Each structure stands twice: as C-alpha cells, then as structure tokens.
C-alpha cells in the first residue's frame, strides 16, 4: 500500500509541477497577478508530495519490502540500516527521485528566501524551475519508476547494495553532487527569467549570486567526496582519473566558478551581462550533460554500469530542448543588452575576464576530451579513448596561469588600478615567492620544476591574500579592522587559499608518490621510501554482510613502529562480489596506503604499498574552497532587505 501511495504522490507532484511551469509564466506575460501567485503554493505542494514519496521509498527500504523491485535489487535484510537508507540513491531510479526531490527543495528555498524579488520575476523563476521539474518527473515516472512491484516470485531476500557503494563517502557523495547540479538550475532559472523580463541589470546578478555560490560549494564538496571515495574505496590509491563521469561533474564546477566571478562583475559594475547569462545557461546545460553521460551508459568509465538506452534518449532530448530553447531566447533577447561601463587594463574587471577565459577554456578542453570518443564513434565507428596525459597537458598549464592571475585579481580595484601601486604591493610578494621556490628547488632531494613551480604559485596566492588583508585594514589597524571585513571578503580569501592548497597537494602527491605491487609471504618485509612494510599474514574476517581476509602490515620507520595497518579483502556473498578495503594511515605530510591484491600460492598475497605525500591537502583545499563559497553566500548584504523603489514597480502586494 505505501509504495502505491508513494507513486501516487509522485504523480500529484508532476501535476503540480506542470501547473507551476505553465500558469505563472502566462500570468507574468499577461501581468495577471492572480495567476502569478499560483507559483508559490504549487512549488510548496510539489515539494511536500515529493518529500512524502521519498519517505515512502525510505520506508520500503528500511522495512525490507522486497515486493518493490527496486528495493529487492538494491537492498538486503543483512545490510546495516544506514546503508539501507543510502541504498535509496544507490541506483538509477532512487537517485532520480533524490534529484527531483532536491530540485523541489531548491524551488521551495527560492520561494521562501527570495521574498524581496518582484512578483513577476519570482513567478518566472519558479516557472522555469517547474519546467525542469516537469521534465524530470516525466522521466522518472515514465522510464524509471522506483515503486514498481514484483507481482510473481517475490524474492525472499534482496540482491544487496553494490558493495562498492557501502561506504560512508557514498552515503553523502550523491546528495552533495545533486545539490550542486540541481542548484545551478536556480542560476539558470534566474538567467532565463531575466531574459524573459528583458531586464538584465545588476539586481538580477545580486539575486542569483548567493544561490549560485551555494550550489557551487555543494558541487565542490560532492566532487571532493567522490575523489576521496575513489582513493579509499576503489582500492587503487588514485584520487583523480580524468574519467568521463568525473569530468561530467567537474565541467559544471569549472564553469560555475567562472559564473560566480562573472556575476560579481555584473553586479558591481554592470559589465559582461550577456556573457554572464551565457555562463548561467552553460553551467546548467553541463549539469544536464553530466546527467546524460552518467545515465545513458554511452561511455566506458570506471563508473559505468549497465544502463537502459531509452533513458539516455529521454535525457538527451530533454537536454537539447533546454539548451536549444534557452540559447534561442538568448539570441533573441541578448542583443538589446549593452554594457555602458568601461574599464582599464589593470582593473578587477580585466582580471575577472582572464579568470573566466581560463576557466571556460579549461572546461571546453575537458569537454572536447570527454566527447571526442563519442563523436568519433558516431561519425566513423572508430573505438578509442582519450588518456589522462591529454587532460593533464591541457589542464595543468591553464590552472598555473589561473593561479598567477588570481593573486593579481585579489589586489586590483574596480574600474582601474594605479600600476605603480599594484607593482609596489606585489613586488615583495613576488620576491618572497621566488625565494620560497628557489629554496624548495635547491633543498629538497626529489624536487623538480613542477614542485618549485607550484610552491611559487601557492606562495604567490597566499601572500597576495595576506597583503590584501593588511592593506584593507591599514586605516583602522589590524585588530579593529579585521572584524569589520565582510563575510564575502573572508569567503573569497578562504576559497583562494583553498585553491592554492589543493594545487599544492595535487602536485606534491603526483610528483612524490612511491608505489609498489609485490608478492609477499608472511614474515617478509619491503623497504619503500623511508618506511619498512612487514607483512604478518592474514586472519579470517566476519562482517555483518560479508566474510573475508584481514591482513596485518607493520610499518616501521627508523626502527620505530609508525602504524599497524589492516587491509581487508571482503567477499559479499549475496552479489558474489569481491571488495578490496584498503588500509590507510593518514597524516598531514603523507598517507601510508596498503591494499591486498589476491591470494597466491604458499600463503603469499599480492600486496600494493603506497606512500602518498601531502595527498590530504587536495581534499583540505577543496573543502576550503567550498566553505569559502558558503561563507561568502551568507554575507549580510544578501539577506532580505528593503527593495529599492525602482524594482518595486512589478509588485502588487
């Protein structure tokens, strides 16, 4: 009964989404406030029904209702309850339900949080989000209903959740990723509403800024969690593969970062208006593309699972409609938009332009590398894949340029910056950074130009940030001045610092990692780097829903024990799946990583040993970037305040 109610609620939500998509839009066009007023209750109702529907599915999972096909395929009575819950989004149907739920949640938040918006604008924004929601609900109900029952041969127990997904990172990773993906629909809806309105002014940019920044922060956290999961759970000790599905989430993040910066310029100075709108459309389109790539199974990827082609077609058609429609609207309306403001060469506008250029080129290069095999396959039938060297060769220089530019960008002022002043500010920063790089290059034994380069750039960003903070507080004095700085200012610095930390971690770990795969019999030991790994054999292991072997590896350094690591090899009997559970001893300066391969003759095992210096800086940096974004979005000036009288015209209330 409860699953049927869940489906019923889904259908009601679809009806409400359709109402929300159509009537307020027509109302905004005819200037009929009664029709526009429908947007809000429709959004609230839709959210309520989707929460109810999601709860029904959660109930089916937690009570082991294996008459529901989706539960039977993705859960098992032996599964711990938290994995039963996260199994809701462990496969396609449930993750699409989570997707629409989060979309409805964002819509709900916009309808509550954007009360200072003119009624026409809000009606249009909610309508555009309603259109997206209608599309995805149709997709969900039509092709991937999570509530389908098994009528005959009801299984006694479920097929279990894919063991790879039984990990804390994977409980949180999809919701975070979707918060980001779907959150960009808000920026998109604002852009489309502004286009429909014909008024692309600073107000539009101010409204959409905090939403965009929050969505971007969530996406960043989602990507970082995914990277952590690949590192710890896939058992390979790699943190980034340039895999198509990773790229699919990374591209919206890059373009979203460009959008955040371009929105700043549009809000503050009224420049790059059309470009900003285009970026907002591009960001959401790339989110849709990501969904398509993941859901259609057209790519060979470490993430690829069997998928249904009809679903891919639906998402592709929907994506083309959304992209085509919004670009047509853009072409019709954007010609009327002109920027009046001018700016000098060393202005903040220019540096933001450089930022946008670098980020969008980086995203375009990744897009090219990701889609190239698909396009070539479609055109010539040739099967090929693009290797990581391509992505590294493209991405690394662009990011180096971005790091170099971002330090300058922090110090420059709107309109124009006196060159002499800028030189005076940056010269000591450059001098110290060069000194640090030189020291690193000569001191460290394993260092090379990449390490020296990244140290130079990271110091450059960090010191330029400090320099800017000192400069901003020079009138009041440091202690009085610091609390007066706004949250968005702190957020900006935190995120830039995070960027530097992340880059530092990425380069240091790539250059400095040592790795060995070795056959080890109990009692033998191997020296790797400064560490000595002694293998003490394996013992039997009995988990809640798995059995396996648990190895013991003693790690010694200079005659002292550093860590006792217990990598596991698990067998999940329900799916007959074998899983490698790596043992990691983490630290700020290095991670020790041990994973079991397969058992060999004479009690020997294939063992993978790795030392990964500074690998944690990558996720630390990514977290700092996301927190910086969240901090900036909570700035006081974004909170509800009196509307300027010029914007008030459209409001009836």
């Amino acid at each position, binding site marked *: 009964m409860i699953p049927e109610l869940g489906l019923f609620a889904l259908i009601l939500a679809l009806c409400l989404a359709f109402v929300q998509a159509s009537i307020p839009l027509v109302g905004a066009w005819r200037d009929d406030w009664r029709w526009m007023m429908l947007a809000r209750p429709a959004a609230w109702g839709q959210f309520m029904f989707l929460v109810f529907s999601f709860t029904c599915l959660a109930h089916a999972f937690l009570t082991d209702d294996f008459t529901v096909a989706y539960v039977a395929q993705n859960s098992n009575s032996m599964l711990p309850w938290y994995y039963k819950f996260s199994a809701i989004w462990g496969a396609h149907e449930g993750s699409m339900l989570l997707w629409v739920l989060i979309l409805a949640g964002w819509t709900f938040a916009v309808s509550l949080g954007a009360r200072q918006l003119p009624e026409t604008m809000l009606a249009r924004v909610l309508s555009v989000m309603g259109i997206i929601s209608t599309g995805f609900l149709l997709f969900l109900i039509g092709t991937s209903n999570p509530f389908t029952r098994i009528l005959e041969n009801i299984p006694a127990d479920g097929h279990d959740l894919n063991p790879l997904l039984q990990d804390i990172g994977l409980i949180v990773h999809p919701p975070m990723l979707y918060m980001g993906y779907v959150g960009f629909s808000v920026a998109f809806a604002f852009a489309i509403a502004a286009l429909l309105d014909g008024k692309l002014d600073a107000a539009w940019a101010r409204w959409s800024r905090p939403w965009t920044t929050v969505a971007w922060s969530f996406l960043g956290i989602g990507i970082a969690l995914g990277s952590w999961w690949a590192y710890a759970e896939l*058992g390979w000790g790699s943190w980034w593969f340039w895999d198509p599905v990773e790229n699919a989430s990374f591209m919206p993040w890059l373009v979203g970062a460009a959008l955040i910066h371009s929105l700043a310029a549009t809000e503050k100075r009224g420049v790059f208006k059309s470009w900003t709108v285009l970026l907002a459309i591009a960001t959401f389109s790339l989110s849709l593309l990501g969904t398509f790539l993941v859901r259609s199974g*057209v790519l060979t990827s*470490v993430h690829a699972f*069997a998928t249904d082609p009809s679903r891919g077609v639906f998402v592709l058609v929907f994506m083309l409609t959304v992209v085509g429609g919004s670009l047509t609207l853009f072409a019709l309306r954007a010609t009327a938009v002109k920027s009046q403001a001018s700016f000098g060469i060393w202005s903040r506008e220019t540096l933001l332009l450089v930022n946008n250029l670098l980020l969008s080129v980086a995203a375009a290069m990744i897009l090219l590398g990701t889609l190239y095999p698909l396009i070539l396959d479609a055109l010539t039938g040739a099967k*090929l894949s*693009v*290797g990581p060297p*391509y992505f590294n060769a493209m991405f690394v220089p662009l990011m180096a340029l971005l790091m170099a530019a971002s330090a300058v960008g922090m110090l420059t002022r709107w309109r124009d910056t006196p060159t002499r002043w800028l030189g005076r500010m940056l010269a000591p920063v450059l001098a110290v950074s060069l000194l640090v790089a030189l020291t690193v290059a000569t001191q460290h034994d394993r260092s090379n130009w990449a390490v020296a380069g990244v140290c130079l750039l990271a110091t450059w960003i960090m010191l330029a940030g400090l320099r800017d903070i000192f400069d901003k507080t020079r009138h009041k004095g440091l202690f009085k001045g610091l609390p007066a700085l706004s949250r968005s200012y702190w957020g900006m610095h935190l995120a830039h610092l995070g960027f530097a930390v992340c880059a530092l971690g990425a380069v240091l770990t790539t250059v400095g990692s040592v790795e060995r795969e070795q056959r080890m019999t109990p009692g033998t030991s191997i020296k790797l780097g400064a560490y000595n790994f002694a293998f003490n054999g394996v013992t039997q292991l009995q988990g809640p829903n798995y059995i396996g072997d648990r190895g013991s590896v003693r790690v010694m350094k200079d005659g002292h024990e550093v860590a006792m690591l217990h990598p596991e090899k698990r067998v999940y009997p329900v799916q007959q*799946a074998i899983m490698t559970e790596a043992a990691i001893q983490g630290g700020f300066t290095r991670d020790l990583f041990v994973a079991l391969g397969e058992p060999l003759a004479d009690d020997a095992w294939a063992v993978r040993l790795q030392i990964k210096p500074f690998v944690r800086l990558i996720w630390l940096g990514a977290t700092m970037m996301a927190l910086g974004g969240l901090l900036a979005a909570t700035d006081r000036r974004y909170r509800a305040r009196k509307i300027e009288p010029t914007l008030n015209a459209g409001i009836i209330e």
Partner: protein
Amino acid sequence: MTLTRKKRMLWILSLLCSASIATAFALAALQENINLFYTPTQIVAGEAPMGTRIRAGGLVEEGSLNRAQDSLEVRFGVTDGARSIIVRYQGILPDLFREGQGIVVLGKLENDGKLYADQVLAKHDENYMPPETLHALKQAKTIRQIPSSKQESTE
C-alpha cells in the same frame, strides 16, 4: 563610430585567432593521447600497430590464466569468440577479474604477438559488459543479442 567598429573587429579577429590556435593545440594533444580499440580478431589479423598503446577487449579465456610462482606476473588469453590473443601483465588484477569475464586491457603489442598490458579494467558490476567488449563480441558474431541487465548504479 568607425573607431569602435574597428576596435570590435580587432577584438573579434583576435578572439577567433586565439580560439583556433587553442583548438589546434588541443586537437594535436588529443591525437597524441588517444588509445584506439582493437578486437582480438583485428590484432591477430595484424591490423593493430606495434609498440603504441592500444586498447583491446573481450572475454578472459576459460582456463587460460597462468600465474608466475615468485612474482605478480600473469598471462591470460582474451578472446572475442573467433580469435584470441595472449596478454601479459605485471601487477594486481582488479577484483572482478575472472575467467569468462568481459574486460578491457590497455597496453602495447610487441613483436612476439603478445599484448603487454599496463592496465586491466574489469567493471564493478557483474552484469555489466564494457561497450567495447560487447562491440568486439558482436564483430565476431559470437553473441546475437545484447544481454539485458538489471543491475545498475549511481556513478
């Protein structure tokens, strides 16, 4: 007016120039870093290049897995049903690697006709067949229809 037009023209031209240069660079880099896919039949027929990194896929031949006694060196056959090739690999095989399983390997073809793999990919999902492996099997006409699969998962 003419000055602004001139300026705009210059802007557009420089933008187009840099865009095409960037694209050219990207395509050149792309050409150097692609790994073409070959089926075992194609490799046996000598269609695959020697010494460059390629991808190959098929099923691991039953009973072909041969492991060295004192190292992680393994040797196994990969077949598309019609022909098979021998793959040599040094290292830990993925968890889902087993005989009869669809896999994709990346490596170089040497003069002895063996493929020296540096990477072996087997998928997370027992029902999942890598599209390329499926392609190889279909080319060799060993399976008439695509096995329908129930299981799938989030990325």
